[in-house]
């Protein structure tokens, strides 16, 4: 069997989320947002659209996307659902397809017009065979299922109220240095504590934003990447594990699945948690950051809320987290924006929010599909 090809992310593109957010009444098309991001990603990679021979879409469907983007006949084409766990999954599929030679240049394209269509991420209950059993008690929305986990986490580990404030504050601090971020105003611990509950114990500032935007990533072989203009960002390892039930609420906070993914992603890359120069952690709601830090061996179990102090997770701290502002401050692009930020940090393109000497970054998503990649600058 021939040796597997190595894979790199060579192009990233994303819309100006803050600018899009200023017009509250716009009716945007998710495919147009994805197209805008694809154009930027192709320019960033220095590749022509005609060179794309694989198209993976998320939140937008492949058939219409392939048509409107003018990529009607790639060797590989498919779509992933519009849930946040799928950004990591899409990158994994792209890596596997390139490794095995089924495609050479894959465009992953994501378009999200959630704000235009007034998404609420709660209140629907007919899409699954079991969600009506939750809805009859008024239970709905991913945030409430995470709140359910966080209350239990507080109980299990003696966590005081307000322990999530550093995560929310850090995201806003980072977004202040991000020209395209939606929420760039700083918040204080007092503001955090006084913000309204959405699903107690979670407050407004624990929640992701709902905004419009698009993100695209271009992946190809590492050999090809070396001929392109920008620093190749190699996918040194990637791994996943399902952790599914009737509920988004995981009774071990996705810990056992995360431990398994962590073991494989660290063994596969040859790096350990201490080697990371920054972490890009899927943060649909702030508790997910704590669950991720523990599941992936960055913080001892039950102690991430103490470990994740503002000093430690700030851009100039020991382990910078969500340097673009994450889902609560930059943009809710369901993990896609976190991938873009990891690449930009490794390339040294993050401007005022650049982490010094950043060569290795980890993406983590603790969710019903736990994913992680280790990205390394060549």
């Amino acid at each position, binding site marked *: 069997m021939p040796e597997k090809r190595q894979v790199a992310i060579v192009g990233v593109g994303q819309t100006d989320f803050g600018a899009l957010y200023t017009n509250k009444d716009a009716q945007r098309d998710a495919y147009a947002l994805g197209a805008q991001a694809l154009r930027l990603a192709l320019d960033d990679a220095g590749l022509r659209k005609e060179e794309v021979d694989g198209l993976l879409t998320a939140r937008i469907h492949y058939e219409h996307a392939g048509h409107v983007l003018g990529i009607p006949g790639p060797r590989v084409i498919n779509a992933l659902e519009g849930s946040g766990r799928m950004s990591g999954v899409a990158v994994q599929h792209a890596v596997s397809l390139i490794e095995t030679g089924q495609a050479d240049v894959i465009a992953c394209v994501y378009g999200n017009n959630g704000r235009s269509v007034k998404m609420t991420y*709660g209140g629907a209950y007919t899409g699954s065979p079991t969600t*009506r059993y939750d809805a009859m008690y008024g239970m709905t929305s991913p945030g409430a299922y995470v709140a359910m986990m966080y209350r239990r986490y507080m*109980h299990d580990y003696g966590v005081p109220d307000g322990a999530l404030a550093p995560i929310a504050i850090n995201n806003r601090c980072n977004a202040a240095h991000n020209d395209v971020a939606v929420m760039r105003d700083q918040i204080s611990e007092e503001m955090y504590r006084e913000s309204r509950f959405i699903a*107690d114990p979670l407050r407004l500032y624990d929640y992701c934003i709902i905004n419009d935007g698009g993100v695209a990533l271009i992946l190809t072989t590492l050999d090809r990447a070396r001929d392109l203009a920008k620093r190749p960002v190699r996918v040194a390892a990637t791994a996943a594990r399902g952790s599914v039930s009737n509920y988004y609420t995981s009774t071990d906070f996705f810990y056992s699945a995360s431990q398994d993914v962590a073991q494989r992603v660290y063994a596969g890359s040859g790096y350990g948690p201490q080697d990371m120069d920054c972490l890009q952690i899927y943060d649909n709601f702030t508790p997910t950051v704590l669950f991720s830090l523990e599941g992936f061996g960055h913080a001892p179990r039950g102690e991430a809320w103490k470990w994740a102090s503002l000093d430690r997770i700030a851009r100039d701290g020991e382990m910078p987290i969500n340097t673009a502002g994450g889902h609560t401050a930059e943009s809710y692009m369901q993990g896609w924006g976190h991938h873009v930020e990891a690449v930009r940090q490794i390339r040294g393109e993050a401007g005022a929010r650049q982490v010094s000497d950043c060569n290795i970054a980890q993406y983590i998503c603790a969710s019903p599909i736990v994913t992680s990649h280790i990205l390394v600058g060549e």
Partner: protein
Amino acid sequence: MDTQKLIAMLPPVTDANRDFWEGTLAGEFRLQHGDSGLPRFPEAPVDPVTLGEDAEWRAASGRATLWSWVVMHQHYFPAFADKLPYLVAFVQLEEGPFLMTTLVDPPEHLECGMALHVVFDKISDDRAIPKFTVVTR
């Protein structure tokens, strides 16, 4: 609360779950057991171990423990608009399955792990909803 709006949200009674809903009217919380013996809630088409389709419904003990709870402040469902903020509990039945529910007359101080027992809230002639109360020692 607008009971008609709530009734419209309930899982429709079907051949697959009729035993469960009849149980709620008879004061029983029934669990489906397939040929592996593993209890399941809510209804599922097959046994998750054997994939066998045969199943029977048995009355559970009605005992459960409080795994966690949230207090919902955000308005999502018109039926719950005048209930805000309201409590949703995630409980584990003694037999194993978890479910979302709510607590009737919860004490001021709740704690994860509290012992609970099922009660049935009859909201119309033909529908009742299982809820739980904290067991006082």
